[in-house]
């Protein structure tokens, strides 16, 4: 039977377009996985000198412990100090907070359990540093790491602070000592 030319063309199945689809697949793979792989390959740590005072914003500062490297992608200057060593990570940060300390702890618990897959062990306990900075602390545990978090409000400001240490289970004793030292180094300058 002779074919009849029509416009628009009849709704028949077109030939599979493999080259175009493979080109799209290549772009999708580059963005979805290639960039992530590249980011993993590029080293993301830098030697972090010990004894350096690092400002975390809102008058808060801490002193870096020895033997740690800066976790560059997770560092946010003036807000978050992120450190790494072989088996542990140590983070000190400030964040806006206008609610009560109990609400802060509840938010922390939910965030840890939902987005970071960590659990707070038992009820948080109060802590106070030698400089008089107070807050709550709790042990944390997960499938691949455990550690501790200290959290509190910055007096007179609508901000909070947190220090968190996390280690491969059984390898965190030294990291815990460094985290306590970092917490003890925490200073808060009162706003003028």
């Amino acid at each position: 039977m002779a074919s009849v030319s029509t416009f628009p063309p009849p709704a028949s199945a077109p030939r599979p377009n493999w080259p175009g689809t493979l080109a799209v697949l290549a772009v999708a793979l580059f963005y979805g996985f290639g960039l992530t792989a590249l980011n993993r390959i590029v080293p993301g740590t830098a030697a972090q000198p010990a004894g350096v005072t690092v400002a975390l914003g809102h008058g808060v500062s801490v002193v870096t412990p020895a033997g740690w490297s800066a976790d560059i992608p997770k560092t946010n200057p003036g807000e978050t100090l992120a450190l790494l060593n072989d088996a542990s990570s140590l983070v000190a940060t400030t964040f806006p907070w206008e609610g009560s300390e109990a609400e802060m702890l509840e938010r922390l618990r939910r965030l840890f359990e939902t987005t970071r897959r960590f659990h707070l062990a038992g009820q948080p306990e109060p802590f106070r540093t030698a400089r008089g900075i107070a807050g709550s602390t709790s042990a944390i545990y997960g499938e691949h790491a455990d550690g501790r978090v200290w959290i509190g409000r910055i007096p007179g400001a609508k901000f909070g602070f947190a220090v968190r240490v996390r280690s491969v289970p059984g390898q965190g004793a030294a990291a815990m000592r460094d985290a306590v030292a970092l917490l003890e180094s925490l200073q808060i300058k009162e706003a003028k």
Partner: protein
Amino acid sequence: MKPAPASAPSSALPLFQPRQPAFWLYALLLVGGLHTAGMMALGGFTVMPLSTGLGLLVWTLYTLPPLWLFRKLGLFRGQPATPFVMAFAWGGLGAVYLAVPANQAIFGLAAKLVSPEFSHAWGAAIAGPSDEEPLKLLGVVLLLLIAPGRFRTIPSIMALGALVGLGFQVVEDYFYTVNAALGHPSANQIEPVVQNLIVRGILCGLWSHAAYSAVAAFGVGYFVAHPEAPFARRLLVAAGSLGAAWAMHGFWNSPLLASLMGGTWFFLYLPLKGLPVVLSAIILWRVARQESAA
């Protein structure tokens, strides 16, 4: 002058094409996007359930006025809803699925290769346009591959771009709302939704992804609609349109003109950054319509 139909009649090739590999690639990436969006919403519902639920409602309703506007502008003329639903779904799921890890990677690379300060200031201006513009446009290309010949005019392809952009925009806004709720400095769950609706939806919504993607799709439309033109010119127009969308998106995300925010001229900040985007999309749309009608 009677405007030409924006696209081929609905009797053209259906978009359910199981023999087309592009159809399955589209479906696979949509499933990935569903997983990403589902996990994000699940986390949000666990930590800030009211914010997450209210945000879902607010951003769903937010989608209606732009759809009405697009209809008034004639974007949907000559096509049933299916291709536009598919374009919207690509923007909100497929493109988001690929953009989330890509953006994180570029932020990380910027911090490592330059500095954390640089990443903080310029990361969004680099990652946003470099990842999101091509990824949104991939959805338009996939739809063209799924049903070749169905979209033969520049306006029909710009309409697909606008819908891809709108889908991306509302899902991104929803993600931002949930993230803002997770980091909100009090237990109030309504505030972060209202704040995001005002800032991202009302103040910034007009000059956002729908406009960028319509501009980028103009080039693909020209490439498809002008097979008689020299290949180099078609490629140049396609690349130029994507480049224009990239530049406008980058300018919007950049800290340039940020000093205006704290000064007397703060009210000029958003129009100065956003008007070029909307005007470009409108001008290109008019050009495309006139050319199709000729």
